[in-house]
């Protein structure tokens, strides 16, 4: 129950943050809408035509702000290419959609945002009323939403109860409000279907190039580990065997000692070959599937890890291998850097997407730019056209979320 309340409180705070952010873009939208109306009015006299391109640019900039805002939570809203900044803009589909959003967000979104910030203020006002109602003039002490004034203690406590109810209402409808406020943006601001396809082609071209890069880097890594590892060990074996052969006639005892060392070197070579092979495709993945392989990782991890894998239909080997490596690397990072006492791994298949979430209770503050191997993971994931999200506020907890497409 308390876990449910904590989760609910958290999502309510998130929702309030979104509502306030939405109010910010709504205020921009109001100002922009006024400017658009002014431009339209001036067009009647002709001079407005001169400022149409500049107005279109402002509308697109404001819309981009909203795209950025709602992309930070929920599904990403991709920015379409800017409409032409000339008179031709009046026939442009993207511009029409942005105008539609502008009108809705400047009115409806603005109103929802206002409600969103007023309600918490009401909670504070009403909830603390018993503490100060007696100290203010008679007609000031009143509930936020009500027409009567408070004149005695029971009345004050009744208002405080109303404040509490208001808080409950916020917890219930808060996330919904934030969703409703963002809805016009989500519906109107993504590129329209034809534009979307072009963007998708461009993105695929880029990720394909990244895939080739990642592939080349992977081959280089394998080549390097073969040359510097197993091959060097085998060269040492031949050197030692050569030395042993020379020593055989002179001093058989030394020869035996050298052969021992040669054998050690050969065993090292074998061990390194196994490591390289495992790095290409972990055999455990083929034998025991993703769930079994991840269980194995959890057992050998430095911190206690709970694993929850529910993947009914298996994904392609390369997708599973990527998920496996990301979890392996993240668990290593957690053991090395986070100071966590426990971690959890959750893997689900949602339609054609493999979702993985790795959370720890460590000190947070993981930074992709600090060279923690996260950038490498991101490249590897983006090569599969997947997505990686890292949330690691200072003080923790750290959550890494991965989405990998696994349809054909």
């Amino acid at each position, binding site marked *: 129950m308390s876990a449910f309340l904590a989760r609910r409180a958290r999502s309510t705070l998130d929702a309030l943050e979104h509502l306030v952010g939405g109010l910010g873009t709504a205020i921009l939208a109001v100002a922009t809408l006024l400017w658009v109306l002014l431009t339209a009015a001036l067009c009647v006299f002709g001079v407005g035509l001169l400022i149409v391109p500049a107005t279109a640019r402002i509308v697109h900039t404001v819309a981009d702000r909203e795209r950025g805002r709602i992309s930070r939570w929920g599904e990403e809203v991709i920015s379409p290419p800017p409409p032409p900044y000339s008179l031709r803009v009046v026939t442009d589909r993207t511009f029409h959609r942005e105008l539609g959003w502008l009108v809705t967000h400047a009115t409806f979104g603005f109103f929802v945002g206002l409600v969103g910030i007023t309600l918490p203020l009401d909670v504070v006002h009403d909830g603390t009323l018993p503490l100060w109602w007696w100290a203010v003039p008679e007609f000031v002490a009143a509930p936020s939403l009500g027409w009567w004034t408070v004149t005695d203690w029971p009345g004050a406590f009744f208002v405080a109860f109303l404040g509490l109810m208001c808080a409950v209402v916020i917890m219930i409808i808060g996330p919904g409000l934030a969703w409703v406020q963002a809805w016009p943006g989500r519906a109107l601001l993504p590129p329209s279907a034809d534009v979307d396809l072009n963007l998708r082609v461009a993105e695929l071209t880029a990720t394909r190039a990244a895939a080739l890069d990642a592939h080349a880097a992977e081959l280089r890594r394998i080549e390097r580990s073969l*040359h510097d590892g197993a091959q060097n060990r085998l060269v040492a074996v031949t*050197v030692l065997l*050569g*030395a042993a052969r020379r020593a055989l006639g*002179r001093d058989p005892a030394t020869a035996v000692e050298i052969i021992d*060392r040669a054998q050690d070197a050969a065993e090292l070579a074998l061990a390194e070959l196994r490591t390289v092979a495992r790095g290409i495709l972990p055999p455990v993945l083929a034998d025991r599937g993703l769930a079994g392989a991840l269980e194995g990782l959890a057992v050998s991890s430095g911190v206690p890890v709970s694993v929850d894998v529910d993947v009914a239909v298996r994904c392609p080997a390369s997708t599973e291998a990527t998920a496996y490596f990301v979890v392996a690397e993240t668990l290593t990072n957690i053991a090395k850097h986070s100071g966590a006492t426990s971690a959890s791994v959750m893997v689900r298949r949602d339609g054609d997407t493999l979702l993985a979430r790795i959370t720890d209770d460590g000190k947070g503050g993981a930074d992709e730019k600090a060279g923690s191997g996260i950038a490498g993971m991101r490249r590897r994931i983006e090569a599969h056209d997947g997505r990686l999200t890292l949330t690691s506020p200072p003080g923790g907890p750290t959550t890494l979320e991965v989405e990998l497409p696994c349809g054909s």
Partner: protein
Amino acid sequence: MRIVIAEDDPLLREGLALLLRAEGLDVVAKTERPEPFLEAVDEHKPDVAIVDVRMPPTHTDEGIRAAVEARRRRPDLAVLVLSAYVEQAFATELLSAGASGLGYLLKERVGRVEQFLEALHRVADGGTAVDPEVVAQLLTRTRPDAGLDRLSAREQEVLAIMAEGLGNGAIAERLFVTEGAVHKHIRSIFQKLDLNPSDSVDRRVTAVLRYLEDSRRRS
């Protein structure tokens, strides 16, 4: 013979030192990075340096650059470069300023101790040792009409061994023929390829390698 080793893989470094010491050779320093290697060359004044091509920090051609630098500081230092695989560009870079007192061998040749020691001594005495693999690559990649097809099969064999850096006597030994026969073959080879004949092994090797390299580049 005083030897300095530069090899970053510990197992190989120790194995090499063990082998050389067992042969009564004096390994005066073992290093694993280019800078300490150059310091050791300055300090110990060795006769020969054995250098691995790949060394930290980038594991690309640090060894070649260190070898070239060591030779710049001490031109009479013999250098034997060991490589995990044949990289034509490295061999060419190393041998471009003259092949005297230089060697480029694959690492696994060290296991054939007699041949390795022979190459080591040859390099220490101012001669040349080029890995048969390097020569083979040059020969196979050379344009067919580069003049090589004018050589007889035996002459091609002699050319390949000569390019490794062996002298007439050693070539004769390897082919089980008399030195006089080798001498005849070599005169004929130089004639057919328009090369300047010379008694010095270094100049012969350089001439042969240049010839192969040039005909490859033209193709």
